[in-house]
């Protein structure tokens, strides 16, 4: 479902080019749950951003369900993010001026794929029913991340990408959020690629991929 070949990416820092990804190869099958681990600066987040089309690679190719992301223009990449991907960030990135209910629907409505039955199921599984009318600033960190996961899955994506989704949460809450995510990913049958520093959380997924110095170790 996701097929990455010889992916390279470098940034300029202080006028000098810094190679972040030096030819990454990776595949994620439909329904597979993969943890992407590695030390700081190994290129985990960069790889995730490239898959999401948030940034452009220098070389190599990313194929999502057969479509090459690198060759698409901004509008087409935006369409893929909207309709086929779910994104969860460490900072939650909810819209502060929208209620929990509206945040949950946010991406699905953008994609024109709002499914009331699926929405209700998500609300119940994520335990958000009593919080629907609240605003993000009125929620705890764990609650905010549950809303962010719900938002990402509301569109029934092909692939869920998560960048340190539990980085801002305590251990118990992190476990709770992870368990919910695994269940929901299984329910939707989408692929799941999660960047994490935590070996404990990585061990909860089907497979671990370790990045070291810009390459899959």
């Amino acid at each position, binding site marked *: 479902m996701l097929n990455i070949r010889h992916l390279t990416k470098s940034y300029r820092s202080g006028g000098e080019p810094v190679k972040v990804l030096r030819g990454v190869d990776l595949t994620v099958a439909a329904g597979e749950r993969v943890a992407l681990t590695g030390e700081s600066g190994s290129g985990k987040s960069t790889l995730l951003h490239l898959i999401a089309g948030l940034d452009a690679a220098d070389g190599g190719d990313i194929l999502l369900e057969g479509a090459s992301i690198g060759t698409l223009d901004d509008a087409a990449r935006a369409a893929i993010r909207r309709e086929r991907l779910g994104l969860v960030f460490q900072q939650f990135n909810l*819209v502060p001026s929208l209620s929990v209910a509206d945040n949950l629907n*946010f991406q699905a*409505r953008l994609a024109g794929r709002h499914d009331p039955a699926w929405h209700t199921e998500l609300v119940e599984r994520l335990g958000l029913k009593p919080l629907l009318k609240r605003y993000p600033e009125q929620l705890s960190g764990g609650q905010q991340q549950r809303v962010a996961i719900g938002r990402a899955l509301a569109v029934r994506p092909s692939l869920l990408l998560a960048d340190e989704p539990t980085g801002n949460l305590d251990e118990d809450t992190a476990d709770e959020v992870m368990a919910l995510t695994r269940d929901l990913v299984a329910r939707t049958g989408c692929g799941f690629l999660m960047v994490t520093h935590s070996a404990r959380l990585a061990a909860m997924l089907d497979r671990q991929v370790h990045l070291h110095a810009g390459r899959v170790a």
Partner: protein
Amino acid sequence: MRRALWILAVLLSHWRRHPMQLATLLIGLISATALWSGVQALNQQARNSYDRAAAIFGGARTPMLVASDGKMLPQSVFAELRRAGWPVSPVVEGRVQLDGHSIRLLGIEPFSIPREVGAAPRVGRSELEAFLTPPHRTLISPETLADLGLKEGTAPRLSNDALLPPLMAQQQLAPGVLVVDIGDAQRLLGKQGQISRLLVGQTPGKREPLKSFAGGRLQLVQPEAETDLERLTDSFHLNLTAFGLLSFVVGLFIVNSAIGLAFEQRLPVLRTLRACGVSARQLNSVLIGELVAFALVAGLVGLVCGYIIAAALLPNVAASLRGLYGAQVPGELSLRPEWWVAGLAISVVGALAAATTSLIKAMRLPILSTAQPYAWQEAQRRWLKLQSAAALAFFVAAGLLLWLGQSLLAGFGVLAALMLGAALLLPAILEIVLRLGERGARAALAQWFWADSRQQISGLSLALMALLLALAVNVGVATMVETFSRTFLVWLDGRLAADVYISAADEAQARDIQAWLRTRPEVRAVLPGGRAEIQLAGAPIDVLGLPDHDTYREHWPLLQAGSDAWKQLVRGDGGFVSEQLARRLHLAIGDWIDIPAPTGDWRINVAGIYADYGNPKGQVTVNVAALTRRFPATPITRMAVRAAPADVPGLIAALTDRFGLDGRNVVDQATVKQESKQIFNRTFAVTGALNTFTLGVAAIALLTSLLTLANSRLPQLAPLWAIGLTRRRLAEVELLKTLSLAGLTALLALPLGLMVAWCLIAIVNVKAFGWRLPFDVFPLQLIRLLIVTLVAALIASLLPVLRLARMQPAQLVRTFTIER
């Protein structure tokens, strides 16, 4: 489409959670649009009136044939020209006295009027019969009908006992004009068989040369793009427009501040939208759409407010235009659809201009940058150096315009560059002053006070710039008006040295009055005067005839004079010119001018230059006897009378009884002065009102900036509260900080305002009106304005400060607990 609407709903949700910010944005747009379109409404109303006046049966808008010697033409030339293929139509023009009013009378021949005179009122088919068959009709504007207190259908009698045809109101006709059939006009004006001019149609065809008609006296006058009235009132309207523009710019400062802050606060949302699959193009389109929608809503409200402002100011503007220029502007607003469209357009353009930097940032928004909700304030600091460089560039531009510019527009350019430069430099100057304060502070709280004030500059800089501009203009205009007021009063005393002024209905009555006055023991002198109107160097000029008398020799407001100035006047080879005419024609004492007179060119030596404030026309003053020799047709119907002040009321009562004169024909010096002062005050009442509005908008800018900043200030204030400062004490410090910043801005505005006053007096007035006033400073006025500023700042900061003083501790605690 549904996606775009959903994105719009998400963007709009920000305003629902930040209503004060939305109010700020809308208030800015509404104020900007209201003040700009209010001024434009006044200008449009006045210009419509000029157009109506100019378009009356040709006027200056149609080509015409006139006698090259300025005299009347025989009516027979009309028939000759028509036979020779010229599509001409005759017009007779003159003035008649009706119920004490001097009114322009036009006689037309409706069958031959060229089709191109389209803007003129048309006599409809049903009315044509009534207009042409006895007792005929007199067309009159509804405004003039109301002014005269007459009703349609009445046939009023003129002062020469002639009877006008029954009145018929015509909406399109300009005020102050009566239109009758040409035969009636010739009878009423005593010009049987004569015509004033011939309107020329544009029908193609072969025409015989003009030389063969009327003994070669015919001259073809091409239509003018701008009438005398438009030329004369240009400066007045330019001044109004400049004020409107200033208010508009001050309003846009608020809009820019609100949009900039909202954009920075919404950055994380914009990035989330992009991350969730909204393309850059769609996001930017919706952002622009949102802004345009706000601009349209605010523009509509602004237009309504602008209409109200214009309606409130129109009576004063109309009175000023009537008093200063003799222009008739109806007291009721009637606006064209273009005004509404232009108002909405200016609101949209203003909003987009104010949002330019934010929109460019949105277009270049990198999705992956870390969200920094309040980076805007920091970014403002980085702009400080750039702003200072731009300020210096504006100062250089002001200097170049001052050095090289000749026009009134260049004068306003100097003002604009000076003020923009000063506004851009303000944050840097405040930064330096506050840094010095910080260095001098010893106590911990004092140090924090200065440091935090410095940090606040970035957030308040736009509002403070708006305040600086509004204050500087207030100081400048107030200084100019005060200077003008004092100079004007002294000048009035000089110009109105006689005790009673009489305007007779005709020369016969004038002779009777003079004879009677000479028999009265209380009358010390009778001073008859006359006035002729000519064109000199393409502009209308009054030639004023004065008798040779001590009254004038002692009081005439001469600015410069040759050694035997008054003797030259009596001889008839010398004259005085008004300051504005001297400046326009670059005349100095001893120069010669040629006055075109019916008896041939009259060569006059410039013997003196005198002040003639408030008169848009140039003026030449000569001896009245010399005037009547050169302009034999000039009626000497005006006279001034010297009498002891105690005898004046009795004399006026006797004149009124004996000659049927009323308040319009005979007035005492005090009344004329009072009326002149009223015109003066009304003229500057408009300026004063716009000044106050601008200051009000600046105060709103300060209030809205403080309110929008209030919440973002909590992280700075909460730690102080946590270490032991009470909320009340914090509120007091906040209040003191705002007052200090406003006070510093006001102090900087004073020298800037005096520079503005100097520019107005030495550049703008000279170029706009042709005269220059002395430059004086009025310290009490400056102190008053300083106090007003501090009170405005106090009012603006009261709401956010009270909120802080009453803030629940839980709200402050949250500052430490919210995950950021």
